[in-house]
C-alpha cells in the first residue's frame, strides 16, 4: 500500500519537476528561474527522501541534508547576484 502511495508521489514529483523545468526555461525573468531552481532543490530533497523509504535505506539521508545546504547557499548567492550584480566582493569597504 505504502509503496503505491510513494510511487504515485514520485510521479507527481516528477511532474512537478517538469513544471519547474518549464519555468526554468521560460523565465521570463531571472528571479523566476532562481526560484524555480530553489524549488527544484526542495523537490530533489523530497525525491531523495521518498526513495530512501522505498529502498529501505538510510544512505540517502546525507544527501538530503546536503541538498538543503546547497540550495541555501545557491539561493543566497543568486539573491546577492540579483541585488548587487556580483557574487563575491573583493573588498566591500571600497
Amino acid at each position, binding site marked *: 500500500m505504502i509503496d503505491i502511495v510513494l510511487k504515485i508521489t514520485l510521479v507527481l514529483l516528477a511532474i512537478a519537476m517538469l513544471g519547474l523545468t518549464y519555468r526554468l526555461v521560460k523565465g521570463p525573468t531571472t528571479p523566476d528561474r532562481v526560484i524555480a531552481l530553489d524549488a527544484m532543490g526542495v523537490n530533489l530533497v523530497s525525491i531523495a527522501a521518498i526513495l530512501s523509504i522505498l*529502498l*529501505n*535505506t*538510510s*544512505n540517502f539521508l546525507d544527501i538530503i541534508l546536503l541538498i538543503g545546504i546547497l540550495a541555501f547557499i545557491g539561493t543566497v548567492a543568486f539573491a546577492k547576484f540579483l541585488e548587487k550584480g556580483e557574487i563575491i566582493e573583493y573588498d566591500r569597504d571600497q
Partner: protein
Amino acid sequence: MEILMCIVAGLLFAAAVYLMLSKSLLRIIVGTGLLSHGTHLMLLTMGGLKTGAAPVLGENTASYTDPIPQALILTAIVISFGVTAVFLVIAYRAYQELGTDNMDQLKGTEADD
C-alpha cells in the same frame, strides 16, 4: 532501463557535440559539461543498473549494485571538474586578452604567429 540510459547518454553526447561545433566559446564549454554528464551516465550504465542495494555494507540485502563504475565515475567527475575549471578560466582570460568569445575570431593564422 539500461537501454534507455544508453540512449539518454547518446543524446547527451549528440547535444554536446552540437554545442561544441558552435562558435560561441561559452556554448563550447557548456558542451564539454554535457559531454561529461553523458560519459558518467554511460559508465554507470555499463555496470548494470539497480541490481541491488547501494554498495554500502551493513544493510540486510542480498545483492549490491556494482561499486566499481561508481568509484570510477567519482574519479572522473572530479577530474572533469578540474578540467572544466581550467577551461573556464582560460576562456575568461582569452576573452580578456583577445576581446572575443567567437571561435571564428580565435582561429589565428600564421601571419600573426
